[in-house]
């Protein structure tokens, strides 16, 4: 009971002890020496109680603790009448603890903000149509849920009615709202920006993408980097060494006070905390930007990467073919041709046909007429009758088979479009060519700039591996300035290429999107997966997951890893440096217990504050700095 009370009011106790110290200082200057001594003893006891309790608790469990050391030191100081020292040490210890807790909270804040985005309740529609608001844990698979404007999507699922624009920042780090309609996937933690939606729950509880992200980030922040492992090993030798040394100091100098000072001051505070805080802040920063970096080791390896390997389709390109151009002939109206062709293609299962239908829908064309006598000619196109017209849509083989003549200029146009990386489809109406549809998978908008940025940040070689044909591959590579292209590959060929690069001594990061890239992703030093809202396979096999499928996130993650490792090195340097300065100071008699404690606490704060800079790290800052560099002539 008493212990709980003390723990609860630790902050107040700390500040009360601090106030007493100031009072003692006043008493000192006004000449009330006895009052000063009394106040100092009181401050020691008040600030000492929480420390003594912790020391006792661990001692009872036969565990060694720094509190025990401090308790011994304080009792020693009281015994020899050093009341200033005893009170300052107890106060500084508590105050340091308080500041550490506060600043550590800041380095952990990215994750906490993420956790706070978790939805709390859901409005579920019951059998008889009435709604009920229940805690999110009670939502079961198959439940129908209503989400209104401003509400949070409580679980993962699909839209069953309504439409809305949704802010998916919690999952993807991308705050530009995306529009969701029937059958689109919804993710827990995302917010309905505008609109009204009904969904059916598909993944609940710990299975939602959001829950998995939190879990992954939590685990990642714990997993240790090489620097951290080195520091742990160092601390393993360091702590017993300090104990032995202080015993030696006692026997040599016969000065218990000095020995205790040595022991307390040498406690490896900044040393143990320095590397983890950098990691936590770095991983937290990534998570908020929609980049999941799985642990300190990954950060470490990622920062050393000098070669990037990309899959083409779905990674460098959007992976979703789009209509890039519609050219009409014989005075046909573009919208009219598109409408007719799209209506005919509604029966097609082929992805090119579906792309045309999608284009028509996005242009708000009404596709209300049903095609008759439609026939799919596999690999060539489709034929159909619609609105009194006879349609043939497909490649030149189909046109030939249908006896449709292709004028020379039309054929030339078609060839040009193909050379530009498109699939160009003929549409003939009543036996005459009416138009050419160009369809292409487009390069991601941020691809060129992201690749250039990463090159500036230290990437030496960029390679593209693709199963696609040489022609398209070369076109994409040319536009993005990629060094080497290997086309027409099978998944196992991709693995071979990654292996070969590694053997040549490169540190390789491989980015891909699909299951077919998984073996190559696993083979590379660093595997990146495009999450697209987080498919299970990609989230589990990859070292780094890009939740918003943005290559700019890739670039951000790369510079973030470099910044994190740099930050960790600085912290190690600060920590190790201060320990040696302190120990030398104690042995040289310049540093006493109180000032040693002060410097010790200051070093702990210094490493935490240094790590906090990583929370604010963003790619825009990086860019500005680079521009500054560019201006200066070499």
């Amino acid at each position, binding site marked *: 009971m008493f212990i709980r009370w003390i*723990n609860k009011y630790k902050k107040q106790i700390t500040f009360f002890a601090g106030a007493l110290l100031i009072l003692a200082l006043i008493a000192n200057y006004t000449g009330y020496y006895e009052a000063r001594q009394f106040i100092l003893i009181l401050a020691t006891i008040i600030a000492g109680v929480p420390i003594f309790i912790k020391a006792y608790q661990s001692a009872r469990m036969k565990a060694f603790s720094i509190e025990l050391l401090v308790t011994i030191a304080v009792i020693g100081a009281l015994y020899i009448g050093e009341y200033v020292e005893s009170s300052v040490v107890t106060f500084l210890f508590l105050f340091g603890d308080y500041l550490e807790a506060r600043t550590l909270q800041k380095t952990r804040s990215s994750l906490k903000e993420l956790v706070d985005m978790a939805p709390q309740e859901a409005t579920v529609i019951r059998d008889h149509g009435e709604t009920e608001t229940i805690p999110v844990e009670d939502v079961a698979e198959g439940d129908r849920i209503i989400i209104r404007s401003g509400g949070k999507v409580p679980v993962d699922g699909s839209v069953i009615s309504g439409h809305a624009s949704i802010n998916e920042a919690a999952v993807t780090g991308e705050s530009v709202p995306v529009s969701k309609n029937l059958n689109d996937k919804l993710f827990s933690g995302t917010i309905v920006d505008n609109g009204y939606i009904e969904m059916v729950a598909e993944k609940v509880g710990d299975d939602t993408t959001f829950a998995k992200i939190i879990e992954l980030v*939590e685990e990642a922040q714990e997993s240790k980097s090489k620097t951290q492992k080195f520091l742990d090993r160092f601390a393993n030798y360091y702590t017993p060494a300090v104990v032995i040394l202080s015993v030696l100091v006692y026997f040599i100098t016969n000065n218990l006070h000095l020995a205790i000072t040595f022991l307390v001051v040498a406690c490896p505070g900044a040393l143990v905390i320095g590397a983890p805080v950098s990691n936590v802040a770095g991983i937290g920063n990534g998570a908020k930007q929609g980049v999941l970096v799985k642990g300190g080791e990954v950060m470490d390896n990622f920062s050393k990467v000098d070669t990037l390997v990309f899959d083409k389709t779905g990674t460098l390109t959007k992976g979703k073919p789009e209509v890039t151009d519609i050219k009409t002939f014989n005075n046909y109206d573009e919208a009219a041709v598109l409408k007719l062709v799209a209506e005919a293609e509604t029966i097609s299962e082929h992805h090119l046909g579906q792309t045309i239908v999608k284009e028509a829908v996005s242009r708000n064309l009404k596709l209300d007429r049903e095609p008759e006598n439609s026939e799919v000619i596999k690999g060539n196109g489709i034929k159909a009758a619609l609105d009194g017209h006879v349609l043939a849509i497909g490649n030149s083989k189909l046109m030939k088979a249908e006896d449709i003549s292709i004028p020379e200029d039309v054929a030339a146009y078609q060839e040009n479009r193909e050379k530009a990386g498109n699939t160009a489809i003929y549409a003939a109406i009543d036996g005459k060519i009416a138009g050419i549809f160009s369809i292409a998978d487009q390069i991601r908008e941020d691809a060129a700039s992201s690749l250039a940025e990463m090159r500036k940040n230290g990437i030496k070689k960029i390679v593209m591996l693709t199963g696609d044909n040489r022609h398209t591959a070369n076109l994409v590579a040319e536009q993005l300035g990629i060094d080497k292209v290997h086309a027409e590959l099978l998944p196992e060929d991709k693995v071979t290429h990654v292996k070969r690069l590694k053997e040549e001594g490169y540190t390789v990061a491989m980015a891909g999107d699909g299951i077919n890239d998984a073996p190559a992703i696993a083979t590379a030093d660093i595997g990146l997966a495009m999450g697209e809202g987080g498919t299970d396979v990609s989230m589990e096999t990859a070292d780094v997951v890009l939740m918003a499928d943005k290559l700019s996130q890739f670039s951000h993650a790369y510079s973030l890893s470099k910044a994190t490792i740099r930050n960790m090195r600085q912290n190690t340097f600060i920590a190790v440096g201060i320990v040696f300065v302190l120990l030398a100071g104690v042995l040289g008699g310049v540093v006493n217990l109180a000032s040693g404690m002060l410097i010790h606490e200051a070093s702990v704060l210094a490493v935490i504050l240094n790590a906090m800079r990583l929370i604010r790290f963003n790619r825009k800052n990086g860019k500005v700095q680079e521009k500054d560099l560019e201006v200066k002539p070499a």
Partner: protein
Amino acid sequence: MRTVKIQLEPLTCPSCIKKIETKLGKMKGVDEAKVMFNSSKVKATFDEDKVSKDEIEETIEKLGYPIVA
């Protein structure tokens, strides 16, 4: 075997990690105890026939680390 995550009040000293892990690890029936310093959680895997979650929580509290319900 059952795995639980126990949320503690924010941990500040990394030295607590070892203290908690060693103590819990020595408990009968506890297979693995891991302190997640940054999220201030203890992840414990234990045999339910030999030890209960309450007993584990009690040990942690006795060590001086209050548990957040």
